[in-house]
């Protein structure tokens, strides 16, 4: 078992009791909530006549089902199911005194985008949300875990989850990223290397020079996709980058109180003699832009590297999976993804819907035009991100290039609103999942990549190497 890691220290602080099952009862310091996975939990609470134990530690917003076109956000929503879900959330938060950032709030956005930018997510916390991408918050040096609805009921009723401690794997990322290569490429490379189930039973501690060099938004993108590698949580030890990011944010105290927090946060870092269950090393030097070629986020190649041939895969089950992926994606084994035509370009999500993502894409789009047959849509991860982009004129760059510029939500990452792929359409996407049907029609196809690569694909109408694009 691990010793003296940040994970061990944060766990110890939040442990309430040993449960008769052998699990630990762990206090959840920050509970985030959205409209899709919470109404059933409130119904269970009502059935049992229980009240919310720590309403001040829960924050809610609406993201999954919300329209992103400004005029479609007027109430009641045209989609009756979406309106019902939103009303259920509004009723539940009001009757339980839970802070809620709804469609009329300047703080509305994707849970995993707003909690960091508001300073709700801080080092040393335990964070839970009925959403698998809760690992995102680990970027601050916290334990973020995705939970199901029965566990949301537990968090509401008790402030805790029943859970078991995991093994800790140190993922050391050495070297330095080259131009045109980003945090997204690092995490895609990690998932490719360790597999989509390589992290089961583990949390990932990301470290090494390439991780330390990332800004907070890059670290958020890396931690966000821990779950795509099977790790329920992933984190980065807090440092000056973390503290600088947090200083002055709405939910972060100032003055002496901030200094005291920093002093405490410094003690949380994994000790130099910390014990890990294992360590793996990934090289960032010479890393090329990464893209997916298949139907899970571990089916990854460098943009100029051939798609693998099923005949070369010895394990029969893996070979069958590769054949299914190649058939669905209509890609050619032995050929790179370069030149693969795209119909849709989608920029946004809890992985890559932050200000730096839109800046990187805007640098590619400045003075360029989206290819004639491509539908390109930009969806800021929060209303705060949208406002920040608009203050810099980034929205104008997107609009001039031929992108649609939307309001905040999960949008085409999960296609629970009006934004969706049609049959057979190919999407160059800054999201996190390329599962069959994930972005809408089950014959739709997703290629995951960095925001800059999405912008370059939108302009070219096909997948290109963003390092070859002159800006």
């Amino acid at each position, binding site marked *: 078992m691990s010793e003296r890691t940040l994970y061990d220290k944060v766990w110890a*602080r*939040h442990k*309430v009791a040993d*449960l*008769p*099952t*052998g*699990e630990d*009862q762990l*206090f959840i*310091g920050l509970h985030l909530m959205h409209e*899709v*996975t919470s*109404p*059933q939990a409130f*119904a269970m609470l009502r059935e049992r006549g*229980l009240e919310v*134990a*720590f309403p*001040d*530690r829960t924050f809610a917003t609406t993201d999954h*089902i919300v329209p992103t076109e400004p005029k479609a956000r007027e109430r009641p929503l045209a989609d009756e199911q*979406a309106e*019902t*879900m939103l009303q*259920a959330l509004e009723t539940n938060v009001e009757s339980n005194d839970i802070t809620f950032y709804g469609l009329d709030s300047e703080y509305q956005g994707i849970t995993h985008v707003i909690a960091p930018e508001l300073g709700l997510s801080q080092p*040393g916390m335990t964070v839970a949300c*009925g*959403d*698998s991408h809760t690992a995102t918050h680990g970027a601050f040096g916290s334990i973020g875990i995705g*939970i*199901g*609805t*029965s*566990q949301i*009921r*537990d968090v509401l*009723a*008790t*402030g*805790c989850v*029943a859970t*078991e401690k995991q093994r800790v794997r140190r993922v050391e990322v050495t070297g330095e990223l080259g131009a045109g290569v980003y945090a997204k490429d690092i995490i895609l490379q990690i998932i490719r290397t360790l597999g989509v*189930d390589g992290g*089961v039973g583990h949390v990932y501690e990301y470290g090494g020079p390439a991780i330390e060099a990332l800004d907070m938004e890059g670290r958020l993108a890396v931690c966000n996709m821990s*779950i795509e590698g*099977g790790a*329920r949580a992933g984190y980065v030890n807090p440092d000056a980058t973390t503290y600088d990011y947090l200083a002055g944010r709405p939910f972060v105290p100032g003055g002496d109180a901030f200094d005291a*927090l920093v002093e405490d946060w410094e003690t949380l870092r994994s000790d130099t003699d910390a014990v890990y269950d294992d360590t793996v090393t990934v090289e960032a030097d010479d890393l090329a832009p990464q893209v997916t070629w298949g139907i*899970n986020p571990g089916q990854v190649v460098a943009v100029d590297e051939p798609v693998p041939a099923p005949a070369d895969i010895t394990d029969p*089950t893996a070979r*069958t*999976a590769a054949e299914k992926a190649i058939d669905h994606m209509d890609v050619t084994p032995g050929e790179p993804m370069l030149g693969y035509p795209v119909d849709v370009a989608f920029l946004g999500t809890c992985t890559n819907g932050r200000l730096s993502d839109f800046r990187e894409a805007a640098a590619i789009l400045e003075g360029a035009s989206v290819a004639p047959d491509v539908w390109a849509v930009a969806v800021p991860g929060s209303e705060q991100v949208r406002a920040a982009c608009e203050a810099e004129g980034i929205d104008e760059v997107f609009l001039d290039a031929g992108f649609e510029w939307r309001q905040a939500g999960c949008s085409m990452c*999960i*296609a*629970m609103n009006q934004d969706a792929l049609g049959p057979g359409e190919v999407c160059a996407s800054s999201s996190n*999942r390329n*599962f*069959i*049907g994930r972005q809408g029609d089950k014959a739709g196809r997703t290629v995951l990549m960095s925001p800059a690569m999405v912008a370059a694909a939108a302009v070219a109408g096909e997948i290109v190497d963003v390092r070859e694009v002159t800006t």
Partner: protein
Amino acid sequence: MTVEDLAVRRVTGTGVAVRGNDVDTDQVMPARFMKEVSFENMGEYVFHDARRDADGELNDHPFNSRKGASIVIVNKNFGSGSSREHAPQGLMRWGIEAVVGESFAEIFADNCTAMGLPAVTADQQTIEGLQTFVEEHPDAGLELDVEQARIITPEAEVPVDIDPAAQEALTEGIWDTTAIMRANLGETEAVAAALPYTDR
């Protein structure tokens, strides 16, 4: 309900095999069916898209022909991706009372335990053997013995692995953790108060 009512010590019934690695929860429950505020109808939507051809006609997916089965047998990394409890809720409401596989994604396995639905594992050879057996003998009765961690078929008795905490939770009827943890509210308040980031 007493813990005795909630205890899950054995599951009996026929089996159904759903083959393939990395069957994610988007395949088990496509997101568009989650736009309901209750789990009530989820049994109707389970594997909705996988059960249909491009033209919408029902295909040869085992869930189209094996209604009535109680034990689903799956391969590696089943339930990966989204944390949606709608996926195991859909399986349970369709009639599944136990999930047997090579491995499970963590959140999926936790959701199953939190619902009182056993999720147990065995090696690839054992699982593939069970899948072939239920495909060839669709009416044969299976028994998952949670207490002894084994599956009994008319032909064989095979050991399975179950997380010790899940096994304890199921066999003792304490998988619903709300009341147990709520009893520790005082201790929880004390832990919360000691944290540097709470105003308590």
